[in-house]
């Protein structure tokens, strides 16, 4: 999108990037570095904190792509809630300060292969899907809250509802799984 922006607005080519493109690239590199640190650090809580940096970097990328609404929702849901839950879980179990020798897994090569494969698949699918899509820059910004809302509830309302039903099912399932039946409770007492 940024590239299209540059081409139509200022006529800049691939080799003379605009300031936004450079910022996008730099933040992207920082985000990638934080993500790599998340999976390579030997300190459990540090991994969660690097994840905060990676997710925050992603939010900045959204901002640079003018998708303001998505950026703030990203911060709200992932940094504000998911990571806090993750830290909560880590602290509840065992979160030693310093390196954990057993934080390394023997599955490392397999994990690397899976990660590379899924990254390739994702990049390929996204590039292939949006290769011929051109964004009209004359209209209102494509990432503002109003536009996102209209697109979501006009064009994508069925997937949206399907997703919400799926989430609801997951929620109910989690409650059912975590609820103890009366016999269990008597057995334990």
């Amino acid at each position: 999108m940024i590239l299209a922006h540059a081409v139509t607005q200022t006529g800049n080519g691939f080799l003379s990037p605009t300031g936004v493109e450079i910022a996008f690239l730099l933040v992207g590199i920082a985000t990638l570095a934080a993500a790599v640190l998340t999976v390579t650090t030997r300190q459990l809580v540090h991994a969660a904190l690097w994840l905060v940096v990676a997710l925050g970097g992603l939010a900045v990328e959204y901002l640079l792509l003018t998708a303001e609404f998505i950026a703030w929702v990203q911060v709200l849901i992932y940094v504000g809630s998911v990571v806090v839950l993750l830290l909560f879980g880590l602290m509840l179990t065992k979160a030693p300060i310093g390196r954990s020798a057993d934080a390394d897994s023997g599955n490392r090569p397999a994990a690397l292969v899976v990660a590379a494969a899924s990254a390739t698949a994702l990049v390929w699918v996204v590039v292939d899907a949006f290769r011929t899509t051109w964004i009209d820059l004359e209209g209102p910004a494509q990432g503002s809250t109003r536009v996102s809302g209209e697109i979501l509830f006009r064009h994508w309302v069925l997937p949206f509802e399907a997703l919400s039903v799926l989430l609801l099912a997951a929620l109910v399932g989690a409650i059912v799984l975590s609820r103890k039946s009366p016999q269990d409770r008597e057995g334990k007492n």
Partner: protein
Amino acid sequence: MNDALDVALRLLAVFAVFLVLPLVIGQTEHKVMAHMQGRLGPMYAGGFHGWAQLVADGVKFAQKEDVVPAAADRRVFQLAPAVALLPYLLVLVAIPIGPSEGAVGIIVDAGIFFVLAVMGVGVLGSLMAGWASANKFSLLGALRTAAQLLAYELPMLLAAASVAMAAGTVSLPGILNAFEWWWLPWQIVGALVFFVAGLAELQRPPFDMPVADSEIIFGAYTEYTGLRFALFLLAEYAGIVVLCGLTTVLFLGGWHGPFGADGLGWLWTLLKTAVLAFIVIWLRVTYPRLREDQLQRLAWTTLVPLALAQIALTGVVKVVMQS
């Protein structure tokens, strides 16, 4: 050039507010608490009714040694106060205080989301502090902080969503432009839910289990001294400013008032914020501390259903008015 100067001036003004208002609220807390408990409070520093007490406290904090426990995770320990404090500064930038163009730091399109998202980041500061201190009390405090988040996050978002539905926008100045006086009774339940959930987010009494001094010393901040401890305290008072300002903007009509709306709107905003801040202090000296499970019960059996009912009411009134 003019634009850059304009932005710089605004940010400077927001920064000044960020430095002054928390101190004013802190001093008010000293005095209000004292008078509610039949004492005088600080009387000597600065002469008139001890107005310089907090300045003196600040000087004292700055002089203290900055201790990092030997077993602590040094970098995370030192970073935590900044993570706790900065989000409130960022939020303050987006809160409008008057109707004119210049009365807000920066107009954010998705204002409500920006404000709630950035406020949520502040919790990470407490968690980092609690974990990195290598202290059991600190860890307990951090655990309670995280558990508390499960209680207040949802009702707070739902209550804010109700206002956004009523106004048809998520931008804070946009909400205030759409405000009518009868929104006050219409959204009053949402306002109460938002305010109570906000108190839980700030860890103010009666929801101060994460720092309960009679149980776990001072929770996540037990090991902190000097300036870093002062930063945590400042974060708490800045949080009060932000919460009261937000409640004012979202539910109490911000700069709208019964008279004097032209030119004096910002005074209404400040007045409403001050009254709310007084209520926050009042609650501190009035209510005993809840337990963490009592807060969960309050949130999930009272606040969430109330917030959902408020959203339903907002939706119904909205549809009836349009037809």
